[in-house]
């Protein structure tokens, strides 16, 4: 089973890399967003954001937020689009005609998302470190890695859940963007949480994006004391993931829904 998942992963990841759209939306776009937001709102010495425990440079503030975006791009947006397309075009149905276990196909695809998410997170951390002098403290580094992995798996599950209710491959991209773009704005990804009105934050607090961004910020924040695990945020993200898994397990199908 594990060997089969790794086998599937090797080819999924290759296909991912060869797709220019995947490369742009999953890798280039988060980097672009980090550079743009950090340059527009950060830069000057007095440009800081108030967060728990003190203030940090605005450019530094954007690193964990955009990591959340990168995780969601890799584990959720890309996964919804590719799984929907593979199902609607009959690729999954053809695999169903072989002895490959469903779990291996799903695990192989999820592994691709996890590896990609780790890659984009590392890339963004590197950019933050080199250009904005933001470094991760060793004390909270394990928390950061755990948060990235929990977030990736949760959004993978949500991705499989959402893909299972989209009937048309052309609708996958607009639907994922329509869901995520507003959430990025109200969850502290594009705009610091401290400049958002309370009611909007209350709305955002229902959804997992806000909690993933918050958990990443906690693990990334140099003012954080202790190990940097944002327990409640992580639990909420994991709960969303579990709900997604529940829907995905009930609704996952190999066969095209649109015709």
């Amino acid at each position, binding site marked *: 089973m594990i060997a*089969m998942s790794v*086998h*599937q992963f090797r*080819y999924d990841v*290759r*296909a*991912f*890399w*060869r*797709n220019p759209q995947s490369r742009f939306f999953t890798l280039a776009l988060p980097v672009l967003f980090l550079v743009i937001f950090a340059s527009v709102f950060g830069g000057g010495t007095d440009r800081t954001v108030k967060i728990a425990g003190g203030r940090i440079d605005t450019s530094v503030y954007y690193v964990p937020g955009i990591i959340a975006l990168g995780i969601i791009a890799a584990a959720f947006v890309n996964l919804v689009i*590719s799984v929907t*397309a*593979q199902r609607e*075009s*009959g*690729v999954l*149905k*053809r*695999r*169903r*005609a*072989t*002895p*490959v*276990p469903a779990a291996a196909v799903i695990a192989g695809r999820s592994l691709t998302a996890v590896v990609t998410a780790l890659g984009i997170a590392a890339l963004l951390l590197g950019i933050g470190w080199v250009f904005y002098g933001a470094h991760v403290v060793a004390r909270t580094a394990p928390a950061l890695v755990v948060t990235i992995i929990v977030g990736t798996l949760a959004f993978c599950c949500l991705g499989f859940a959402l893909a299972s209710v989209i009937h048309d491959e052309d609708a996958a991209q607009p639907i994922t963007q329509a869901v995520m773009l507003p959430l990025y704005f109200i969850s502290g990804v594009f705009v610091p949480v401290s400049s958002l009105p309370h009611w909007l934050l209350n709305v955002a607090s229902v959804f997992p994006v806000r909690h993933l961004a918050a958990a990443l910020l906690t693990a990334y924040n140099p003012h954080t004391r202790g190990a940097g695990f944002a327990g409640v945020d992580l639990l909420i993200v994991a709960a969303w993931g579990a709900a997604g898994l529940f829907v995905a397990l009930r609704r996952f199908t190999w*066969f095209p829904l649109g015709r």
Partner: protein
Amino acid sequence: MIDTDTTLDMGRMAEPGAPVISVRGLAKRYGRYQAVKGIDLEVRHGEIFAFLGPNGAGKTTTVEILEGFRSRTAGEVSVLGVDPADAGAEWRDRVGVVLQESAVEPGLSVRECLELYAGYYRTPRDIGETIALVGLSEKAGALGGSLSGGQRRRLDVALALIGDPELIFLDEPTTGFDPSARRAAWEVVAGLRELGKTVFLTTHYMDEAEYLADRIAVIADGEIVAEGTPQTLGGRDHMTAAIRFTLPDGVAVRNLPAGLRPLAETQPSGGAVIRSETPLLHVQMLADWALGRGFDLPDLDVRRPTLEDVYLSLTAPTGGTHR
């Protein structure tokens, strides 16, 4: 463990002529619509079996039940000794499927696609050899998306073969092909017979069934309306032949010799046709008569009903339109 191995070996060693697919009283209902109305089928080891029928006749429903993709309402189905409704990985290891429509794996080359699929099976065939078998060696490094329609279909066949299955389902493998691509695809399918595979082919092309199949079953409106070899289907071998010709000016059908006159009729186009159960004898009589009178019949044509004629009469909505 021992039990599984025994069943497997029995399947693998099935002797020629043993049933690979056996269907009794298969029925499928969608709501109030009865798509398949209790059909029987038997496909023997090593044969190419063509399953013909117009769109909406229950063809794809039947195939998808046999492939284990759809549930059935009633009846007994055994494919390689197993009920496909509860078949698992073990069974899928022995069956290859070419779906009616399936896109190529995006972002992978022909060779990589086959590597991926080879990894799904216990005892896959050699990858290079399989690519050569379907005639894609020159395209082995090309991305699936860059292949032509005919090449993609050959890749589909290669993917269905890579697990070295005993039984292969081909669902309308040449729909939408140009004539030369169809010919090429037929050669690939005919090659499967040489490999000793059993092939279940669905198609709505008569010439395809006639060229490839050992036996044919025709489904219309959810029922099997005929079964036989391409030569005997629907009583084709007993049907009268049509001897057509045009008589020279001044000669009419009533001038034919007495033995032919009652069988002959004039066609709207002006030609004459003789319906004959003994075409050789009647052609000789016709030839002797014409040559005796000093003229030729340059457009003489002797034809038995084509498989297409038989098929159209079998599947005609009201039935009985055959001449």
